[in-house]
C-alpha cells in the first residue's frame, strides 16, 4: 500500500467516523434537549401540554404546600405570570420560598406543571443564571439584588 493510498484510507475512515458522530449528534439534539422557559414564556409561547421543559423562576412566597407521601406543590413566578407546580420527592437543601428554582418536567393541562426534578443552586448567594435572566426580562431583577456580601458573585449571576 502506497503512502498516498494509506493517507486516503486514513482520511476516508476519519471522515466516516466523523459523519457517524455528526449523525448521532443531530439525532440526539433533535430529541433529547430540553428548553428553558419562564412562566411568561409558557403562557406567551402557548407551549403544548406534555412538552418536556425546564421551568425557572422564584418560588412564590406562601405557595409551598407539603402533602402526604412526600408530595409538595408550589408556584413558580417570574413576577408577571405564575404557574403551579406539583412534585413528589425530596427537594434540594436550598429550596425555599422566595428563592430561585428550576423545575424540570412536563406541562400539564390548565397551565400547570408536573416536575420530576427540582434544582436549586448550592450556595445562598447565587441565582440560577437562567432564572436571573428571566427575572431581568420581567424587570424584576436589579443588579446586586439577592446578594449577601459577595457582590461580585451575585452580579455574576445577574450578568
Amino acid at each position, binding site marked *: *500500500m502506497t*503512502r498516498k493510498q*494509506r493517507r486516503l*484510507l*486514513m482520511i476516508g*475512515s*476519519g471522515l466516516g*467516523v*466523523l459523519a*457517524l*458522530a455528526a449523525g*448521532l*449528534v443531530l*439525532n*440526539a*439534539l433533535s430529541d*433529547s*434537549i*430540553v*428548553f*428553558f*422557559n419562564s412562566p411568561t414564556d409558557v403562557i406567551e409561547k402557548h407551549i403544548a401540554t406534555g412538552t418536556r421543559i*425546564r421551568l425557572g423562576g422564584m418560588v412564590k412566597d406562601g405557595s409551598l404546600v*407539603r402533602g*402526604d*407521601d*412526600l408530595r409538595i406543590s408550589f408556584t413558580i413566578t417570574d413576577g408577571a405570570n405564575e404557574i403551579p407546580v406539583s412534585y413528589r*420527592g*425530596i*427537594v434540594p*437543601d*436550598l429550596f425555599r420560598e422566595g428563592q430561585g428554582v428550576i423545575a*424540570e418536567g412536563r406541562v400539564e393541562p390548565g397551565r400547570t406543571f408536573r416536575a420530576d426534578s427540582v*434544582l436549586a*443552586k*448550592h*450556595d*445562598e448567594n447565587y441565582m*440560577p*443564571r*437562567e432564572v436571573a*435572566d428571566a427575572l431581568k426580562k420581567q424587570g424584576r431583577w436589579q443588579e446586586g439584588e439577592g446578594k*449577601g*456580601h*459577595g457582590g*461580585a*458573585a451575585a*452580579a*455574576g449571576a445577574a*450578568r
Partner: protein
Amino acid sequence: MIAEIGHYALVLALALALFQAVVPLVGARLGDLTLMQTAPATALAQFAFVALSFAALVACYVTSDFSVANVYENSHSLMPLIYKMTSVWGNHEGSMLLWVLILALFGAAVAVFGRNLPDALRADALAVQAWIATAFYLFILLTSNPFLRLADAPFEGRDLNPILQDIGLAVHPPLLYLGYVGFSIAFSFAAAALIEGRLDAAWARWVRPWTLAAWMALTLGIAMGSYWAYYELGWGGWWFWDPVENASLMPWLAGTALLHSAVVMEKREALKVWTVLLAILAFSLSLIGTFLVRSGVLTSVHTFASDPSRGVFILAILVVFIGGSLMLYAWRAPLLKQGGLFAPISREGALVFNNLFLTTACATVFVGTLYPLALEALTGEKISVGAPFFNLTFIPLFVPILMAMPIGPLLSWKRGDLYAAAQRLIAAAALALIGVAATFALMGVKAVLAPFGIGLALFVMAGALTDIVERAALRSVGPAIAARRALGLPRSAWGTAFAHFGLGVTLLGVVCETTWNSERIVAMKPGEATSVAGYELTFDGLLPRTGPNFREVVARFTVRQGGTPVAVLEPSKRTFSARTMTTTEAALLTRGASQLYVSLGDSNPDGSLAARIYYKPLVLLIWLGAVVMVLGGALSLSDRRLRIGAPKRARAVPAAPLPAE
C-alpha cells in the same frame, strides 16, 4: 504584612516569567548557549516566588487574617485547620493561584529533570511555558488578586461554602489541576518542536512521561471528584454529564488519545503531525475547561464562585493560546518529515482507530457542552443538554473503542494478523459470552443492553490479561516459567494491561450500578421500617449534635439483613451558622463493592422524616477501576525506557529504533 509579601512575590514571579518568555527564545534563535541556559534558572526562581506567594496565602488562612478580603469571604476562625488550608483553593482567586503554582512546578520539574534535553528544545519549551505563566499571572494580578485588603478588618469570616468543607476539597482540585496543567508540558514541547521545525522519536519519549503523569493525576482527579459528588450532594449520582464534569472529561479523552499516538510516534516515528496536534488540543481543552468553570458562562451543580467579568480575560487567553498555537501548527507542521509506513491492520492501525474514536467522542462531548452556549448567544433560546444526549452520542462512539481494545495490543507493529489476534482472544470472548448468558439467566431480560455491557466489560478485562498471558507464552512453557517471564516483561506492558483492565472494571461498575440500583424515597416516623434490596432499615429517631462550626440533626437507622443487625447508619442535616446554610450528609454502608446509601430530606408536618435510600450494586468498581488505571499509568511511568531524566541513551543515539515487541 504577609499578604503584601505574597502579592509582591507574585509580581516578581511575573517579572521572571516575562524574562523567561523572551530571553531563552532569542538565545535559541541566535544559538547563544548562555541565553538559553537562563531558562532553567528562571523557571526554578519563578517556582520559588509562586510557592512563596501561595505559602503567604495559606498563612493568611491559617492565622484567620480577616483583613484579607479573600480570607474573610471564605474562611471562619472556628473551621478545623485542614479546611482552613483547603479553603485556600475553595474559591476563584485561590484556585487560580494554585493553578499557576502547579504550572510553575511543572516548569521547575522540566528545568530539573530535563538536563538531557537538547538545549534549544528545552529553552523553547520553557519559554512557551513562561508565556502561559505570564498570561495567568496577569489574569490573577489584574482581575483576581487574592491578597486584596479590606479597609476595616471584620471580626469574623463568612465561612467556606459548607459543601466544600470536606476532605474531597483537599484532594480533588489539586489533582485535577495537576492533570490540566500537566498537559501544558506536552503543549510547550509541541510548540517548541514546531518552532524548531524538528520532531523525532526522542521528542515523543520526552513528552510521554509528562503526559502520562498528567493523565494519571487527571484520571484520579476526575474519579475523586465523581466520588465526592456522589457522597456529598446526596443524590446518589456519580456522573451528571454536567458541563463542569465535561470540562474535565474532554482533556482526559484528548490526553488519552495523545498517550496512545505518542506510542506510535516513539516506536515507529509515524503520526508526528497528528501527535503534535493532539498535544495542542489536550492543553487547549484544559484551558477551555478552566474558562468554562472559572468564567461563569455555565450554570452547573458543581461550580462555586464564578464571575463573568473575568471571563473576557480568560477568553482572551484562550484565543491567544489556542489560536496562536494552531496558527503555528498550520505554518510549521508541513515541515515535519513523514514517518514509517504501516498496514491498516497493525498495532499502529489499532492505535489510529483508538485515536479516531477517542477524539470523535471528545468532539461530541464538546458539542453537547458548548452548543447551549452557542445557541443562547445566537438566538437567545435557552436549552439544557443533559444525560440523554450524551448517552445517545458518547456511548455508541465509545463501544467500538472498548471492543477493539483487547485486539490492539495483540497486533504486531507494521503489519498485524487480525485472524491470529482473534484466535488468541477466543478464551476472552468465551468468557464474555458466558457473562452475557449468565446475566440473562440471573437477571432476566428486563434490561436487554445490560448483559451485553457486562459481557463487554468481561471481554475488556480478560483481553487485558490475554496480552500478558500471550507474551509470557503460558500455553507453551508451563506456569512456572511463564510466571517468571511475565514478571520480566517490560513494565509498560504491565501498565497497558492494568490500564485496560481498569477501564473494564469501571465499565462493569457503571453497568451494574445504572441497571440494578434500587431507590426508595420514603417518609418515615421513628420506629418505622422500610426495606430495600434485602436490607431492612429501621428509623430509630433523631438526635442533635454540635460540630466545630455547625449544628447537626442526626437520624439513626439500624440496618438489618435477614433479621440480624449489620450496622447503624447516621445520615444528618448540618446547619452552618455563619452562612445559615444547610447541607445533607449522606451515610454509606459498604458491603463488598456495593453500597447502601441513605440521605435525608425535610421533616414533614406530621412528624415524619423524608429519606432517600439507595442500594447501589458494585458501585465502588467505578472508582476502583480508575485507581487500577492510574496504577497502570504508574507502572508504565516506572518503565526505565520512559523514566523521566533517563533518556541518556536516546541522546547518544538519537531516535534509536527500539526493538519491536
